[in-house]
Structure formats: structure tokens, C-alpha cells
């Protein structure tokens, strides 16, 4: 009888203890450091010290720091969305285990996107590239980070190298092409877009590439004309009437051929160079889009606020014409017509 009593008493004690633990835990659950009113202190040991203190277990230490990093990101993701200590975390992990390949890529991306710290991202990724010179992902991410800081030469170089590495996907070429464009190296950009258009299997990508090629094919001669106009102006203090005048005056060897059998036109009032073909193309696009706006009104009862509304509509978003000038469409609310932010090929830069 007393044995039963013992068991019963022990059981009761356990139940009471368990219940109290459970109740108190639900009080503390979900409280982040903010609720506790504490300052979050990240105590990260110095990398040199930690390497030595790990006594050979550096890999394991790196893993544990990584887990801590994940927790740090999660906490701040739910909270203030600021990640000031993130660079230190990644530096520590890669100091402890420099062969931790995935961390370079993940860290590079996280530092760029979350911490908004492209500089740390770049230094992490460059470290990764020195250890893993053949990993396309790390090279690609460093290209992305360079892009964010507008270091287009380095970005394009990274993208190009990444493309040469084993298992690199072909769409990286798009970044290469875009990078050269940003560098204003239009010849190379054209080369790359052309390559993409002829090698890709993706219909949408091919379409985009073709339109880029089209654009650049027209842009490059237009720029040449614009530069010659500038020299003409410096000599004669006025703009030429047409490209033929430039040739006659000796500033151009020949009139560049407009790729679509149109003509290059010098707009003497706006100091721009245009192509007749692309101008009419643009007009057609604007007409088409304005018609879409009217159709939108008929369908939905109100005018779309922005171009995105049109794009997002299932029916009307199809066959959306690309802007031939690398400009953007916008809806002019007074006339309810679609206009373009840019309607010229090149500007004549006069000081």
C-alpha cells in the first residue's frame, strides 16, 4: 500500500513540476531581447583568438557560428530588419573554415541584400574567389555586388569569368551584355546581345536579345553622328542639317546606314539624333499601348494608374511591346495616353 502511495506522490510531484515549467515557459516564449528590455549584445570572439581556442576543431566552431548567424538573421528578420553585425559573422565563419564554400555565396548575397552592405559583400566574395576560383556562383555574386556599387568594369569581368567556369548557366551572358552597356562599351554589348540571341533556346530571352541588338545597331552609329556633330558645332557654332553635311564637311567618312532602311535625323532644336524607323516604331508602340488603355477602361471601368496595371492584366499584358529606346512608358493622366520618357537615340553633348 505504501509503495502505491510512493508512486502516486512521485507522479503528482512530477506533474506539478511539469505544469509549472510549462506555464512559465509560455510566459517567456516569444519574447525577443527587445521585450526583455536588454540591449542585444553580440559577443563574437576575435577571429584570431577563436581559431586558436578551437584547438583544431575549427570546422565545428565555424558550423556553430553559422547556426548562430542563422538565428541572428531570423531574429532581425522578424524585428527591425537591420543586420549590422552580419559582416562580422561571415568574416568569422570564413576565417575559421575558409573552405566553407556555400557561405561565400550565401554571405555575399545576404550582405548585399539584407545588410545593404555591398562593400563587405565584395570583400567576402573576393576571398571566396581566391579559394574557389572555379565556382561560378561566387563569381556571379561578386558581379552582382559590383553592379550595385556601379563598378561596372569589375562587374562585367566577374560575370564573364563566371560564364567560363564549369556548369555556369548561359543566362549569365545577359549580365555580361548589360554590364558592357553600362560601361558604355556598346560594341561589346552588341556582340554579347547578338551571341545571346543566336544561342539561347529561351523564346523570351531571344526576343529581348533581338530587340537589344536592334537598338544597339542603331545606337552605335547614332553616337558616332552625335560625336561628329559636336566637333562640327565646335568649329562652326551651329549644327549640321543632316548627316550628309557632316560627310561633306569631313567630320564623317560616310553616312552610317540605318539598319532598318530608315534615316538618321539630326534634331537641331533638341540637340538629339533620331532614327526614322525607330521613331515610327515608338509611335506605333505608343498608339498600341494607348489603345490598350482604352480597352482597360472598357473592361475595368476605370483608367489604369500605371503601366504595371496594364502589364498585370492577363489579356492586355500579352504582346506587350518593348520600348525601343531603352526608355520607359508612362501614362499621361490628362490625355489618358501612353507617353515615353525617352524618344531619342543619342544626345549631342555640348558644354
Amino acid at each position, binding site marked *: 500500500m505504501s509503495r502505491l502511495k510512493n508512486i502516486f506522490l512521485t507522479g503528482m510531484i512530477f506533474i506539478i513540476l511539469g505544469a509549472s515549467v510549462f506555464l512559465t515557459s509560455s510566459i517567456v516564449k516569444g519574447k525577443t531581447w527587445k521585450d526583455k528590455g536588454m540591449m542585444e549584445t553580440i559577443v563574437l570572439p576575435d577571429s584570431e583568438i577563436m581559431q*586558436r581556442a578551437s*584547438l*583544431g*576543431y*575549427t*570546422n*565545428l566552431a*565555424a*558550423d556553430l557560428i*553559422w*547556426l548562430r548567424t*542563422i538565428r541572428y538573421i531570423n531574429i532581425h528578420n522578424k524585428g527591425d530588419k537591420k543586420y549590422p553585425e552580419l559582416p562580422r559573422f561571415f568574416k568569422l565563419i570564413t576565417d575559421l*573554415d575558409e*573552405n*566553407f*564554400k*556555400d557561405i561565400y555565396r550565401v554571405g555575399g548575397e545576404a550582405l548585399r541584400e539584407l545588410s545593404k552592405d555591398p562593400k563587405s559583400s565584395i570583400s567576402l566574395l573576393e576571398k571566396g574567389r581566391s579559394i574557389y576560383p572555379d565556382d561560378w556562383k561566387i563569381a556571379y555574386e561578386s558581379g552582382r555586388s559590383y553592379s550595385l556599387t556601379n563598378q561596372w568594369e569589375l562587374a562585367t569581368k566577374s560575370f564573364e569569368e563566371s560564364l567560363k567556369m564549369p556548369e555556369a548557366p548561359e543566362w549569365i551572358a545577359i549580365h555580361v551584355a548589360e554590364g558592357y552597356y553600362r560601361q558604355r562599351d556598346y560594341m561589346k554589348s552588341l556582340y554579347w546581345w547578338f551571341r545571346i540571341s543566336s544561342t539561347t533556346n529561351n523564346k523570351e530571352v531571344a526576343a529581348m536579345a533581338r530587340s537589344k541588338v536592334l537598338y544597339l545597331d542603331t545606337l552605335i552609329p547614332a553616337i558616332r553622328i552625335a560625336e561628329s556633330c559636336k566637333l562640327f558645332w565646335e568649329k562652326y557654332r551651329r549644327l549640321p542639317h543632316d548627316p550628309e553635311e557632316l560627310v561633306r564637311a569631313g567630320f564623317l567618312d560616310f553616312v552610317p546606314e540605318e539598319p532598318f532602311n530608315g534615316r538618321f535625323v539630326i534634331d537641331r532644336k533638341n540637340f538629339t539624333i533620331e532614327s526614322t524607323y525607330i521613331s515610327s516604331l515608338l509611335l506605333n508602340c505608343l498608339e498600341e499601348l494607348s489603345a490598350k488603355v482604352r480597352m482597360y477602361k472598357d473592361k475595368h471601368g476605370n483608367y489604369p494608374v500605371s503601366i504595371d496595371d496594364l502589364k498585370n492584366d492577363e489579356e492586355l499584358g500579352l504582346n506587350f511591346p518593348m520600348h525601343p529606346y531603352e526608355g520607359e512608358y508612362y501614362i499621361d493622366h490628362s490625355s489618358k495616353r501612353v507617353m515615353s520618357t525617352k524618344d531619342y537615340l543619342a544626345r549631342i553633348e555640348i558644354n
Partner: protein
Amino acid sequence: MRTISAITISTFKEAVRDKVFYNLVIFSLIVLASSRILGLLSSGQEIKIVMDVGLGCISIFGLIISIFIGGNLVYKEIERGTIQTIIVKPIDRHEYIIGKYLGLLLIIFLNLIFMTIGFYVILKGISGTWNFSIIQSIFLIFVELMVISSIAIMFSTFLSPLLSILLTFCLFTMGHLSEDFLFIVEKMEGSFLKFVSKIIYYILPHLSNFNIKNEIVHGFSVSGDYIFSSSLYGVSYSFATIFLAIIIFRNRNFK
């Protein structure tokens, strides 16, 4: 030979039947299994975590056994008087020490086998690849444990268990920092101090030689030459330490 194996087997039996050993093995397997859970938290790095924790556990628990059992081994027998019934038999003192050492190695080896099997099961469970280089890494861990246990036994021939354990652990720590120690020594001024410090450097066990865990986890392979030369270093160091232990032990009086 027969006397040595008799001591080896009795040492082995004594340690294996001690509940502490069993608890340690079970605990180590639990920690090993928990690596699976840690892996899940690691956002894609599951295999790396399981491998790092696995090899780390094998190393750490082997270390615990080497230092704690080794540090107690001889001294306990001297203190309780058990040694009196053994030493008065026609057995050389060196046979006793060697027998004890081999018994300890057998225990460590047994623990290593259990943990390696557990590690294999868990690794296969998350479809990791098991390759020969993992065996190489575990082999070098065993060589490192040979060195550490020889040091522990050497201390336990004349120091209390507490001191043996502390000093062995100190040598373990310094053994892993030996390269940094050399760096400091190179910068020293004062030729006598530098000379003495250099001697200390050479006496320290260079344990980082046995650590290829980091390479193995990332899939780098280690050359057979390296394994061979490291093992040779480890075995000769152990020999030398056991020799020292024998010399100390020979001169001891058992009151």
C-alpha cells in the same frame, strides 16, 4: 608477452565493466545523433554539420577517455595497493606499464569502433557519402589519442589523478598551439631563453599533424605519404613517452 597480454586484458576488463564507460559511450552516441537535428537547423548545410559533429565527437570523446581513464590508471592502483599483488609477481616493471598502455588503447579503440558505426549510420541516413578519407581521418584521430594516452599514463605513474588530468590537458592544448609557440619563440630575444624554448617546442607533441578533419569534410584528399609520416611521428612520440613512464615507474617505491 603473455604477462603483457594478461595485464592488457585485465585493464581492458576493468575499464569496460565500469559503468562510467558505458554511460560515456551511450552519451557520445546521443550527441552524435543530435547532430542530425543540428543539421536541420543549418539551412542546407546538413551534411557538413553531421560530418563536423561526427568527427568532432569521435575525437572529443576519445580524448575524454584517454585523459580521464589514462590519468587514473596507474595512480589508482598504487594508492589502493592493488599494484602490490601484481608487481611482486615475476613481471618486469616495463611489462606492467606496456600492458596498461595497451589495455587503454584497446578501450579507446572499442569506443572508436562504436562511434564510427554510429557515425556511419547517421551519415548514410542523410544520404551523405562515406569514403575512405573518413577512415583516414579517424585513423589519425586514433594516433593522436595514442599520443595523449601515453602522456596521461606517464603522468599517472607519479602524479595524483587531478594533476595528471590537468597536465595532460595542458599538453593537449599546447600541442595544438605548437605552431604559434614556435612563432613566439622565433621572435624571442636572449639566446639562452630562446634555446630553452626551442627545446620545449620540440618536446611538445605537435598534435595539429593529426588533424585532417577540416580537409576531409570539404572533400580534399590527403596523400598516403602524409598519413604515413604523421603516424610515424605519433607512434615514435608515444614510444618515447612510454619509455619515460617506464623509467619513472622503475624507480618508484611502493610503500
